[in-house]
């Protein structure tokens, strides 16, 4: 035993499987070097390059997906399966859209450009790693990898007190949640004697120990901070409002998705037999998150804060299937489909909404919902795009959001039983509440007069326009032909075994 521990065996490294990470890491080093050597007037190169690096990493993701084999590395701690590939692609594309959203903002705001894009790319790399992690250590490293750059990014408007507040709040609560999670992980290691998720699952199968429940609770709560589930959401609105808007978009879409990916991995691979511990936990978190998020969103007058609370509420929806995962293998499968589908659709529509907010704010210099008044009069295209995103978030067919909500409801009803149906009803009521504030923004754009009568047209910078086209196309196409994403979401299982 002792000797076995000491002996170091060179792990075989599957370079093809790691290619996306390698492309990203190498590319980001190049980005950093380029940043050192270009002068101030040509800093835009850095952003473009980061975008290209992100797109470049899609190539190995695509080749891996076409090959279709599951690749397991490091004794089962790092896995490349369909699930991880779909999410890697999602993170990379979402990262690319955020780069598009940032380019003009960072350029015009007179902020550090090179470092910004480097940190953004690093955070995406952390997410890409998260999708493959099947080991407590690699999960934790991926989490910190994606979190630490985003603490910095949140405080990027360093001359603005609110942005500083955003960064500090995010940092403090983020570190606090990491500590909680680490404590839970240490308990798990104590019980299982291994950090591999499969080993933990095997160890936990043998018998219930109260300590296990505590450990699971800590780990789940740690991630609940990350996905801003109520009551662990308090950092989110302030951070979202204070952070630069593209960063807010990034946090509310990509970071949140990464948190969910970790939760799913843990639930499916590490704790499959402890459903009596985490199912009620997710039930309560989900019901609270969507209800509180929605009720608070109703009261917001600032569009970013409104989107912050809406994103909290959407998180509650994504948590819903997790409350029934353990009921049956079919329920687990449906839940996995639902969560992955939701994450994909949510990324498209939420990033799109932020794109419009960014474009409009360039003109109005305001974050108030009232500043959207009369948008249809002077920028009909933007108004229609925003309408599409908002009602997609509300889940109105034929816009993308409906299929995500549908998948969630279906997974709940597939599990059946009073608790599942009860949660579905709470979810249904919440969709109606949510519609009210989404429609409130649409009302401003369509039915209210232009504030100050200033109806000069809006110029849309090319990168933002590209982001808008991408997201609006995705939102519409997914809504009409849901097969496109549901096929990716239709994952039979999470591969874990070595």
């Amino acid at each position, binding site marked *: 035993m002792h000797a076995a521990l000491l002996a170091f065996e060179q792990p075989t490294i599957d370079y093809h499987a790691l290619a996306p990470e390698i492309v990203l890491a190498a590319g980001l080093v190049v980005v950093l070097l380029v940043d050192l050597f270009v002068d101030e007037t040509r800093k835009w190169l850095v952003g473009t390059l980061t975008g290209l690096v992100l797109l470049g990493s899609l190539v190995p993701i695509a080749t891996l997906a076409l090959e279709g084999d599951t690749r397991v590395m490091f004794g089962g701690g790092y896995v490349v399966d369909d699930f991880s590939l779909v999410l890697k692609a999602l993170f990379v594309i979402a990262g690319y859209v955020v780069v598009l959203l940032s380019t003009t903002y960072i350029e015009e705001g007179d902020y550090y450009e090179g470092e910004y894009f480097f940190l953004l790319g690093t955070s995406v790399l952390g997410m890409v790693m998260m999708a493959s992690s099947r080991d407590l250590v690699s999960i934790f490293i991926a989490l910190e990898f994606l979190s630490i750059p985003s603490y910095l990014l949140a405080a990027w408007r360093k001359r603005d007190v609110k942005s500083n507040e955003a960064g500090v709040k995010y940092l403090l609560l983020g570190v606090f949640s990491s500590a909680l999670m680490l404590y839970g992980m240490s308990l798990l290691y104590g019980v299982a004697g291994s950090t591999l998720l499969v080993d933990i699952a095997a160890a936990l199968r043998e018998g219930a120990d109260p300590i296990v429940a505590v450990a699971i609770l800590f780990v789940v709560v740690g991630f609940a901070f990350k996905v801003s589930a109520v009551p662990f959401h308090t950092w989110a609105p302030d951070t979202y409002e204070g952070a630069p808007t593209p960063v807010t978009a990034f946090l509310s879409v990509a970071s949140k998705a990464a948190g969910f990916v970790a939760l799913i991995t843990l639930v499916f691979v590490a704790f499959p037999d402890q459903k009596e511990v985490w199912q009620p936990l997710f039930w309560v978190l989900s019901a609270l998150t969507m209800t509180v998020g929605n009720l608070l969103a109703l009261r917001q007058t600032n569009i970013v804060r409104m989107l912050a609370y809406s994103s909290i509420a959407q998180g509650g929806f994504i948590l819903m299937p997790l409350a029934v995962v353990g009921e049956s293998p079919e329920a687990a499968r449906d839940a996995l489909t639902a969560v992955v589908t939701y994450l994909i659709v949510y990324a498209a529509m939420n990033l799109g909404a932020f794109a419009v907010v960014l474009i409009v704010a360039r003109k109005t210099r305001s974050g108030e919902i009232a500043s959207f008044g009369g948008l249809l009069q002077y920028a009909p295209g933007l108004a229609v795009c925003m309408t599409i995103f908002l009602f997609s978030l509300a889940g109105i*067919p*034929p816009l993308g959001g*409906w299929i995500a909500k549908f998948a969630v*409801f279906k997974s709940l009803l597939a599990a059946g039983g009073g608790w599942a149906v009860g949660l579905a009803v709470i979810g249904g009521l919440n969709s*109606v509440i949510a519609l009210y504030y989404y429609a409130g923004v649409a*009302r401003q754009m*369509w*039915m209210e007069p232009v504030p100050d009568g200033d109806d000069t047209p809006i110029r849309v910078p090319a990168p933002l326009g590209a982001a808008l086209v991408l997201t609006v196309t995705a939102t519409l196409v997914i809504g009409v032909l849901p*097969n496109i994403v549901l096929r990716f979401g239709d994952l039979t299982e999470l591969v874990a075994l070595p």
Partner: protein
Amino acid sequence: MEHLTQDQWALSVGVFLPLVGVAVMMFIPRTEEQLHKLVALVTAAATLAVGIYTLVQFDYDQAEKLQFYVNERWIDVIDSRYIMGLDGMSLPLYILSMVVTLLVIVYSWDHIPSPGNPKAFLILMLVLQVGMAGTFVAQDLILFFVFFEVVLLPMYFMIGVWGGEQRKYASIKFFLYTLFGSALMLVAFIATYFQTGAESFSIEFLIANGSDIARTTQLWIFAGMFIGFAVKVPMFPFHTWLPDAHTQAPTQGSVILAAILLKLGTYGFIRIAIPVLPDAAEEWAPWIGLLAVIGIIYGALCCLAQTDMKRLIAFSSVAHMGFVMLGIATLTPFGFNAAIFGMVAHGLITGMLFFIAGSVKERYHTLEIRRLSGLLKQTPRMAWLLGLCTMASLGLPGLAGFWGEFPAILSAYNPAAGLPEETFRTFMVIAAIGTVLAAGYLLWLYQRAAFGEPTEEFVHDHHIHDMVLPEYLAWTPLVIGIIVLGVYPNLLFEVMDPAVNVALSAFGG
């Protein structure tokens, strides 16, 4: 089940053709108002042409079968397919939606409501048409649901942007009510899917297997569908969005709302809720009948209390849809036939009434009944038409309204086996009283608005003129429809009856 697969493109083209017009209009600048109207008009006309083609190609000897049947892959993961088909129950409503959209666009030629922007207005109208036509031909629950919801957004904006004083309140109320209903409806759909073995969302499949669902489960699922459809119809007590939406909507919106959108709810009952869940339908039928007759009386009493012409017509819709629902509640072929006829007739008549109300409002800038007087003197032709429509609406024999109302009442005399006969006969009596009240409020309206001398304030108003060309063009087909169906109702009954019998086969119909 056998299907006819002639011209498989016909329904898809008929449903989605308006989107071509929308795509064209998106690239035309907003200032080209006439061009927008022209494109919309051509699109709607082309859509109707496709509709007429289906009307011609429809095999009337096999009206009980789904025709122009398409069954393609759509969403594999949830076993939902792109299934479209048209039988005798769908045909009248499908064509009606196309006709009404075209007429509304014709009417819009010089009646774009304030604040203008025909581009947005007409684009929304065409999108609305996609949802309406699609709902009537979708043969898969998820497809049905998507089309059912597609109409929400355009209607919300149509009321909210182009509506009256209270438009913001009315539009969001409409939206929230309908969304609440459809959320429950969706849950019921998914529950049906799981209860029938999670195999398919095809309506035919569910009809074949739905009756195996345990009775108590059926009752719950039916309740979900019931609320979804009842909000749309709307049935008492879910109707409170309707008077606001109708009154505040622009004329075109009111017409479409009355003529087509309300029928999505009743159609849902006869196409989905009742055939799929026959046991639950039987259990629920007396309650539906009760709510229907309450709606008839309540709607009529509300009409008597209205001082605004448009609001009065809106409440009369509640009453008329009560008759339709009473016919449906009997679960007999006779009642169903009456109900579908009632839907079409109500679409033509109430659509026409809202058109006239809109034109009156445009000329007099008010719809307050006591300020209107002597329409017959100032705008004789329009007032005559108003007369014809009120007569049709109160169910005068020889006009279309009669064949919706009278058979519905009659059908309650003999409800399907298993339903309480006395209860339904009581309903019949109450409904009959409702027709008397209808005559009361409609004649009273006509008397106050059309007879007498024009009031002081309008008598010298030179802006008040009789009908203009777009009004003639938009209204003539509706009037012809009202008269032809009134004189020869068999035209419709013949088409519907075979399909109705199939829908009710679970009840020994």
